[in-house]
């Protein structure tokens, strides 16, 4: 008897539920992202477009009656304010390096050695109260008749002119103190994820301390170093009160200070906005370059 194979029809699988689930998934994703997108549009994208728009106008006001669109503001920055751009980059870079040089060992000790690290972390965040307070504090400490004046006089440094004799150093120091916590916190986060046994293994295999640092510790903590450096650099690009109060002509020649003067004192919102766009482009460029050269280290 021939075997009869009955091809039992399989009822078509309903896709109604799947589609609904897919939609729900998609909607959930969009729904979760929506607040962030809305906030980004309102507080970031729209102001950015507005800033760029104003930067392309000459002698514009908030009234925008018959704005004249031009690239003159950017031309002026190129012709007149390029030294300001370089000074801005120089000070921000040096201050960020200062943070790295002193912040890395500090972070290492904090992670590996310090018993009350939470307390130290809390104390370390004090500079974040603001560059204004910090700068006045530094000026008081290092200034004429400040608490360190006897010490400086004792070692032969004229405390009356200390702030004026070393304006570059004082400015970089002031900028670095403010951003120091950003560097330390990022490096601490990175070092916390580095297994201490890797260092021990390297030492056991004969590596010297500097080799442990350069071949094990630093490469593994690189994402944190980079993140810390970028944040420090970004902050230091825009800070103007520190160079204003601690610097002299050479340090006061920063874009943020020129921006403040042009926009807030002289009401040239077009040029001020153009300077703002340049500062932002600087920050974006550095971030992009760093990500590129670190091969996505931040993503790891």
């Amino acid at each position, binding site marked *: 008897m021939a075997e009869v194979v009955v091809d039992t029809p399989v009822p078509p699988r309903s896709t109604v539920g799947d589609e609904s689930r897919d939609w729900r998934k998609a909607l959930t994703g969009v729904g979760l992202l929506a607040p962030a997108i809305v906030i980004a549009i309102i507080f970031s994208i729209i102001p950015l477009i507005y800033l760029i728009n104003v930067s392309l106008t000459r002698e514009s006001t*908030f*009234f*925008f*009656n018959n704005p004249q669109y031009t690239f003159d503001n950017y031309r002026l920055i190129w012709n007149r304010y390029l030294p300001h751009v370089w000074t801005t980059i120089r000070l921000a870079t040096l201050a960020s390096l200062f943070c790295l040089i002193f912040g890395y060992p500090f972070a290492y000790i904090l992670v590996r050695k310090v018993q009350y690290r939470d307390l130290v972390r809390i104390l370390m965040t004090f500079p974040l109260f603001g560059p204004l307070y910090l700068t006045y504090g530094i000026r008081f400490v290092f200034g*004429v008749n400040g608490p360190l004046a006897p010490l400086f006089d004792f070692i032969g440094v004229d405390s*009356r002119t200390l702030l004026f004799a070393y304006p570059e150093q004082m400015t970089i120091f002031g900028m670095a103190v403010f951003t120091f916590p950003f560097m330390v916190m990022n490096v601490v986060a990175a070092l916390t994820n580095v297994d201490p046994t890797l260092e021990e293994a390297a030492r056991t295999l004969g590596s010297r301390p500097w080799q442990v640092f350069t071949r094990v510790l630093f490469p593994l903590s690189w994402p944190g170093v980079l993140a810390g450096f970028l944040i420090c650099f970004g902050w230091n690009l825009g800070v103007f009160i520190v160079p204003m109060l601690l610097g002299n002509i050479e340090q*006061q020649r920063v874009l943020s200070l020129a921006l403040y003067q042009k926009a*807030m*004192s*002289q009401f040239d919102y077009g040029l001020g906005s153009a300077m703002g766009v340049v500062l932002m482009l600087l920050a974006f460029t550095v971030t992009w370059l760093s990500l590129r050269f670190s091969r996505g280290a931040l993503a790891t």
Partner: protein
Amino acid sequence: MKIDQRFIEHFAATAEKRRYTRRQVVRAGVGLGLSAAAIGSVLARPAFAQDSSASPAAAGPVLDPISGAEMSYDDIVAAIQAEGEVTVGNWTYTATDALIERFEQYVSDVYGVDVTLNYLGTQQPSTYLTELYAAAGAGNTPPHDLLAIEENYWAEVRAQEEAEGVTLLADVLPSGLIPNADRVFENFTQFPTAVGFQASASPGITYNNDNVDFLNDWTDLADERLKGKLLAWLPGDITGGGVLLGVIAAQGGDYKNPDDVAEGIRFLVEEVHPNVLKYTTDTSEAQQLLKDGVVDAVTFWNSLARLQYLDGQENAAFLVAASGQYAVNGYMFMPVGAAHPILAQIFMDWRLSDDAQFPDIEVWGITEGNWAEFQEGFMGESYVDLVPDWIKDVYFNFFPTPEQLSTQYKSVDWAYYVENASAWYDEWLAGIGL
């Protein structure tokens, strides 16, 4: 009991003599341990009773130019109750609790209403204008009911009005609510939109007269004996602008002549700049460095000399330049559409009153230094006799006489200044490398 009563009598007499406010009576009474009944008996005296006779509307309705309405005393009280607060933009150093308390007490005493004075201070008054323009551009209510800042900022707003074809300032003067404006010399008024509250403010040179005896005019800032001993205000606002105008005048030039301006800037860049230890925008730095002898001269405002003097630096002096000073006084002006126009006008009137022009340091609870910051010369003839005894002997060392005000203090064509100042600053800043 008899002794207690004598004590209360003595306290009341002292409070009357020192023109205590009702709030001060309560505070002092509590501090002295007086009972509530005793304090109440002092407050019941006519000197501390609500004094509606001090209101401009005491004799009858007065015109409010903002609404165009005649307002009786009761109308004003109702308007104050409805407004409840007023926001004034001024400078950092005058935005003190003493001033706020005194004005609030004044409103309470005269109108029987408790109000809040939001008194804002900044060292960069231009930020107020940015906020005003931003609000006007967006069609919002202006953030300040009244601005009390330098005259050039008033001119800047007027220029903005003209350029943009918009109305930013209210025509508030003359006003029945501001009768004290009639006491002010005409050259300190900009009717219908503004009235001065300072008479002798001027950017200038404050110096240490123990170390410096060669300053006579603005051009002496180039004297090589000042090398590394001069603290200069950063060019970019009216403080630096006043210095530039002064230098041009000292060179015999005219700030309306571009060649003279160019020569003035060249002089500041090539002759004065080498003497500059530092450029600053920080008043406290100027005070500290002058007091500590790090610098011998500071280009700032005339008030610095008397502040330093009253702070114990007796060798601080202000140079009234041989070629004259440019007056850059504080003016009060009200943005159009201000949310609290009645209280703003009452504040304007109060600011020109005897009490606010020549504060009693004991009544106000302020230091002599604070007083020197509030006081800025005679606004009119009716103020001349108000100089308090404690400073009478040295008053004219730091403040000009009415005659000097008319002979040595020059006025500025602010419309011209506003139109050209930005280019001047640019040239000057570029010259010194900024």
